[in-house]
């Protein structure tokens, strides 16, 4: 799986209202978004902490859409591959 997740990002947002929840639903419908928590976009409610993974080539568009929608976001993991490699204490398995 070397580099399979290179430059993928994990975002965290806390939708403030139904409109922002709707935006996340839209995002999920047009992009390949892997929800880490909650388990699925259908479970997202306002004020809920939402973490989701986005593939490398889409993360720029996702950030643009979040900014455009006025949805505050945090990048939890900036490069998933680096975090994946770092989960192992040593490369030697």
């Amino acid at each position, binding site marked *: *799986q070397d580099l*399979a*997740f290179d430059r993928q990002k*994990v975002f*965290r947002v806390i939708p403030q209202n139904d409109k922002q929840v709707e935006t996340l639903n839209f995002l999920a419908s047009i992009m390949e978004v*892997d*929800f*880490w*928590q*909650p*388990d*699925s976009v*259908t*479970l997202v*409610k306002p004020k*809920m*902490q939402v*973490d989701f*993974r986005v593939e490398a080539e889409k993360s720029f568009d996702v950030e643009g859409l979040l900014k455009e929608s006025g949805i505050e976001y945090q990048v*939890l*993991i900036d490069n*998933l591959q680096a*975090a*994946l490699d*770092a*989960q*192992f*204490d040593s490369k030697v*398995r």
Partner: protein
Amino acid sequence: TSGHSYEKYNNWDTIVAWTADIAAQNPDLVSRSVIGETYEGRPIYLLKLGKSGSNKKAIFLDCGFHAREWISPAFCQWFVKEAVENYGKDTAVTTLLDKLDFYVLPVVNIDGYVYTWTNDRMWRKTRSKNAGSICIGTDPNRNLDAGWCTIGASKSPCSATYCGSAPESEKETKALADFIRGHLSTIKAYLTIHSYSQLLLFPYSYTYDLPKNYQELNSIAKAASKELASLYNTKYTYGPGAETIYPAAGGSDDWAYDQGIKYSFTFELRDTGRYGFLLPESQIKPTCEETLLAVKYIANYVLEHLY
């Protein structure tokens, strides 16, 4: 077991060898059995811990429902290690193993776990084929017969929370449910280990209704959360699943509870999102140590409140 480490993530072959070894090295305390096989034909191993004795009650502990939640199987291995290493040395552990049995299912969703090692670290579901769809897998924790597919689950095979074609449609969940159904007279508590978010949940998730012994479960969870925080100040949130996080039907804790197992909990281990499913191996030890304190608390409570 060569290559096995309690402070590293172990692949499935290493875990299989470990189950054989831990049972062979501790014949008086540990026995290994097979309770079924997975969709791809792998044996589902179950370890039974406890001093042999008649009419003992038991606690069922499972790990590895969701494939990518690697800290979960790491805890089940840690739990078994601590039990066998401390039996005869630590009074509390010795009493627990003399008076209770522990059924430990190291990995429920074995096919999915293997897939996270070989193909896609981010895989979550089982690996079963869905008729009429190119999408693979069912969410095993939406597949139990507990309000099945009514809320917080999807009927689409492509969804992460696909509830399956029917309750217990997955060989893995049916094997688990069959075993527990067959041992309801002895199993008095059910603990299932997931990650992440640092939550200690109890029924219900398939409804906002509260369980009959809500006060009791809430006070157990409150005390267990204190144990979880006692070593490293790890903050856990606790409560009934539906109101604490979101409603979700088909979960194993709800199912076990509705079978009459009145002490039923879901742990969501570290962390709160800094690493998420990719918790570094350096955090396996502290995570397992704090979780073990909470599990021991619950086990002692169950022992003192057998029914």
